[in-house]
């Protein structure tokens, strides 16, 4: 157990002690105790920066289930470290913010911080695990803790709905991902990501390769809210705002991004990967930014904006995969897409975190998040306004903020697609820059809505619940830090490039690093008059135009009927599935034993006859049969007549007597086939059981007793005939397929000598195989006790009186 492992599981350990702090130390807000840990972890992970830059990666292993190849291997490379820093850094800020956001008196803080710490630990585990199964374990832990956090205000119906929805979708994806991991294991024989990457070249022809790719992507797309699985994220906004800021903008939704980046070395050579990742990313970008414009809730706008920005990063990762098809790193312009993805990942975490916190402050100070009831807050809340301005302008991609840089790099990457000459991109490649540009226009519009509808204009007519004023400093601290980072990264992007972006890009594209080609990232604010700059100018011009005339064209959102939306599809899907499965269960589980018997017998006939025919085991060989005597024929006729009498008798009494006749005839058969002990027992037992039947018959209720025949039912007749035929066939065939001699000779020889008895049946029963007899005695004992219990124990009668 190294210090690194301790760092990963430290949040879980602290989560264990949080309720103690919460219950015992009531004077201090529990968050202060929690805050220490992510801050320490952040400092701890910062110390890895030089090591990762110089040596590449640090690996520590602790055995977990070595026999299955599952070890808790912590692996810190550029990508993992980047995510670990985001998680702990933003985690500290979010905990700080939550201390001021959540009231000590009203909220159940113990649960909140337990869930949050669980989530933090799980997320660290996801990004720092080298073993796929460990990664999956932590992945599901993030789903569960996210479920708990979304449903934090569990007395609200919307919270429970959102929690359930996100749980269903992300766990669906998680399971698909597990399937993909198992396929990877089948192909490579290892759960270690390092090992799998080293064998990546051998897998491409494997029939499991494409299914594994699709399943892993399914996991990444559901977690990262890609189209069409993005629908859970807007509903997850019912969570407390710190949770939204942390999980649903900066960390959890980036787990899918992480997975795609992490798996790129395995799959990225494949054209399918390129197409799926980049197309789904760009569709998500356009669709979500288009939908963000029509939202009226601050957090809903931010949710759709998160989805669209995730799509942007995803599409960049997809385009970045194209770089692998060009061996030279010099002039390899597609590599820039990967760099842009990593850079935007950082940028998005900073500005989106701060924007969520701003939305939380506005909510906290006015009591509403609806932009139709907001306005004119600029003078009341100047600091909040400044932070929001920085965040939204960065999101819209305006200079001098970091969003501008990553947006420029995004456009550059998309324009570079035009020069790709693989995967038919000469023809379809033009879609990418066009869609990217359209998505950016909508991004610009909703960013402006977010800022100006909230903070400028007139104050609405009706008064807010509270009198708004500037938020306390503690609440503003975290967004101020994030906004400051937005500006710092915007003005001095290269403090990031050498320390973290280059190692991260190396981790995503290890092929170039291995070839010894140095990889330099140099982001500059001014890069000359290029296509992407004109695109940005066009975005601003067209976006401003559309924003000003928004009321004129807003009605196009009503073109799509509500019923066709993805949410309606999900809701209807749930209702339908429930209804269908209920109807199905009701259809065959009808409560009638007769139907269940028919199912059982049909299955019996089907399975047995299929296997008999399939194995060609049916045989009618008659050569090794004994001769049939006249007495057997007579007895067989009697038993047949008696059996048919049972079926067609009008009175139940007749059936009982006929059944007795069958029993006595069987006893006679035993006599005829020389089994005296059996005959004796059969006679006695038959007498007793006929007596019992008569007892049951005598006590039938008088009211509904009707003397009528068994009604004829075709299905029953067919099934019973089928069972009879199948059993007869099996008996005949089994008799003809005897492979070994009987072992009876041993008993014949040894009954007298070994056991000292003359009656072989009895010697077998009590000597050779006495164990069976013992337990049959036990069966009879249980039956007797059971009958006694049923007769004597009348609990319901005692209750009555």
């Amino acid at each position, binding site marked *: 157990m190294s210090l690194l492992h301790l760092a990963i599981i430290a949040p879980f350990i602290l989560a264990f002690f949080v309720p103690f702090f919460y219950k015992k130390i009531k004077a201090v807000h529990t968050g202060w105790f929690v805050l220490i840990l992510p801050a320490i972890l952040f400092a701890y992970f910062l110390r890895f920066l030089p090591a990762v830059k110089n040596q590449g990666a640090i690996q520590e292993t602790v055995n977990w289930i070595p026999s299955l190849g599952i070890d808790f291997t912590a692996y810190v490379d550029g990508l993992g470290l980047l995510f670990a820093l985001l998680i702990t850094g933003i985690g500290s800020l979010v905990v700080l913010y939550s201390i001021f956001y959540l009231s000590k008196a009203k909220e159940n803080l113990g649960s909140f911080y337990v869930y949050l710490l669980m989530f933090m630990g799980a997320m660290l585990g996801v990004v720092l695990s080298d073993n796929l199964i460990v990664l999956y374990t932590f992945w599901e832990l993030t789903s569960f803790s996210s479920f708990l956090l979304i449903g934090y205000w569990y007395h609200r119906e919307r919270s429970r709905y959102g929690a359930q929805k996100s749980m269903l979708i992300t766990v669906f994806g998680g399971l698909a991902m597990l399937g993909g991991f198992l396929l990877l294991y089948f192909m490579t024989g290892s759960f270690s990501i390092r090992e799998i990457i080293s064998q990546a070249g051998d897998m491409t022809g494997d029939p499991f390769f494409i299914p594994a790719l699709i399943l892993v992507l399914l996991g990444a797309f559901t977690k990262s809210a890609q189209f069409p699985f993005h629908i859970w994220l807007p509903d997850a906004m019912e969570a407390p705002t710190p949770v939204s800021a942390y999980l649903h903008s900066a960390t959890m939704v980036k787990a899918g991004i992480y997975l795609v980046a992490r798996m790129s070395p395995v799959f990225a050579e494949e054209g399918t990967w390129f197409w799926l990742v980049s197309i789904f990313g760009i569709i998500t970008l356009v669709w979500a930014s288009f939908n963000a414009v029509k939202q009226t809730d601050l957090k809903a706008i931010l949710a759709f904006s998160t989805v669209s920005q995730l799509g942007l990063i995803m599409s960049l990762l997809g385009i970045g995969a194209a770089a692998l098809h060009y061996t030279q790193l010099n002039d390899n312009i597609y590599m820039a897409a990967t760099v842009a993805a990593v850079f935007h990942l950082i940028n998005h975490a900073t500005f989106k975190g701060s924007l969520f916190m701003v939305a939380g402050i506005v909510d906290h100070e006015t009591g509403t998040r609806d932009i139709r009831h907001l306005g004119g807050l600029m003078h009341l809340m100047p600091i909040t306004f400044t932070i929001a301005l920085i965040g939204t302008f960065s999101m819209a991609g305006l200079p001098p903020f970091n969003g501008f840089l990553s947006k420029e790099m995004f456009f550059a990457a998309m324009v570079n697609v035009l020069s790709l000459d693989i995967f038919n991109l000469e023809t379809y490649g033009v879609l990418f820059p066009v869609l990217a540009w359209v998505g950016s226009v909508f991004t610009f519009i909703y960013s402006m809505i977010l800022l100006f509808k909230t903070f400028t204009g007139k104050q609405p007519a009706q008064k807010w619940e509270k009198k708004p004023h500037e938020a306390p400093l503690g609440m503003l601290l975290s967004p101020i830090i994030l906004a400051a980072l937005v500006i710092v990264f915007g003005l001095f992007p290269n403090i990031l490039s050498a320390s973290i972006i280059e190692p991260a890009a190396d981790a995503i594209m290890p092929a170039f690093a291995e070839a010894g080609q140095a990889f330099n990232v140099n982001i500059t604010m001014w890069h000359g008059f290029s296509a992407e700059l004109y695109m940005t100018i066009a975005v601003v011009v067209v976006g401003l135009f559309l924003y000003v005339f928004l009321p004129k064209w807003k009605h196009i959102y009503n073109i799509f009927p509500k019923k066709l939306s993805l949410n309606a599809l999900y809701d209807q899907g749930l209702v339908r599935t429930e209804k269908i499965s209920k109807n199905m269960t009701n259809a065959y589980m009808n409560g009638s034993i007769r139907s269940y018997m028919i199912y059982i017998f049909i299955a019996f006939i089907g399975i047995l006859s299929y296997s008999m025919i399939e194995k060609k085991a049916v045989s009618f060989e008659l050569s090794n049969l004994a001769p049939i005597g006249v*007495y057997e024929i*007579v007895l067989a006729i009697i038993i047949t007549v008696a059996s048919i009498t049972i079926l067609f008798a009008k009175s139940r009494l007749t059936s009982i*007597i006929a059944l007795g006749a069958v029993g*006595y005839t069987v*006893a*006679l058969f035993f*006599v*005829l086939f*020389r089994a*005296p002990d059996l*005959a*004796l027992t059969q*006679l*006695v037992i038959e*007498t007793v059981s006929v*007596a019992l039947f008569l007892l049951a018959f005598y006590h039938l209720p008088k009211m509904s007793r009707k003397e009528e025949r068994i009604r004829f039912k075709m299905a029953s007749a067919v099934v019973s005939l089928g069972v009879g035929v199948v059993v007869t066939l099996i008996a005949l065939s089994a008799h003809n397929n005897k492979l070994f001699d009987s072992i009876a000779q041993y008993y014949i020889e040894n009954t007298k000598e070994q056991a000292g008895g003359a009656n072989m049946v009895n010697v077998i029963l009590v000597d050779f195989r006495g164990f069976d007899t013992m337990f049959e005695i036990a069966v009879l004992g249980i039956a007797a006790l059971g009958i006694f219990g049923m007769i004597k124990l009348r609990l319901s009668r005692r209750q009555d009186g």
Partner: protein
Amino acid sequence: MIKIMLTAALVLFSVAIAIALYRIISGPSLPDRVVAMDMIVVNLISAVAIISILLETKAFLEVILILGILAFISTIALSKYVERGVIIERKRNR
């Protein structure tokens, strides 16, 4: 010779069982049926005895004894049912 005679006896017993069976099926009252059943069992005893001679074994003598006991017990039980309506009476002093 003896085999033919035994077989003939078996056939005759079967005929007797069949006749008694007719009484069981058609017998207007319960006592008729009880007596017919008793007769069937007695005939069965004889049939088993003949079969055991035919099979040349002593192993079925117990079967004959059991059949005799069962026939007696069941006839008694049924007669008691006809007479009293119950077979096992409850103790009065309870």
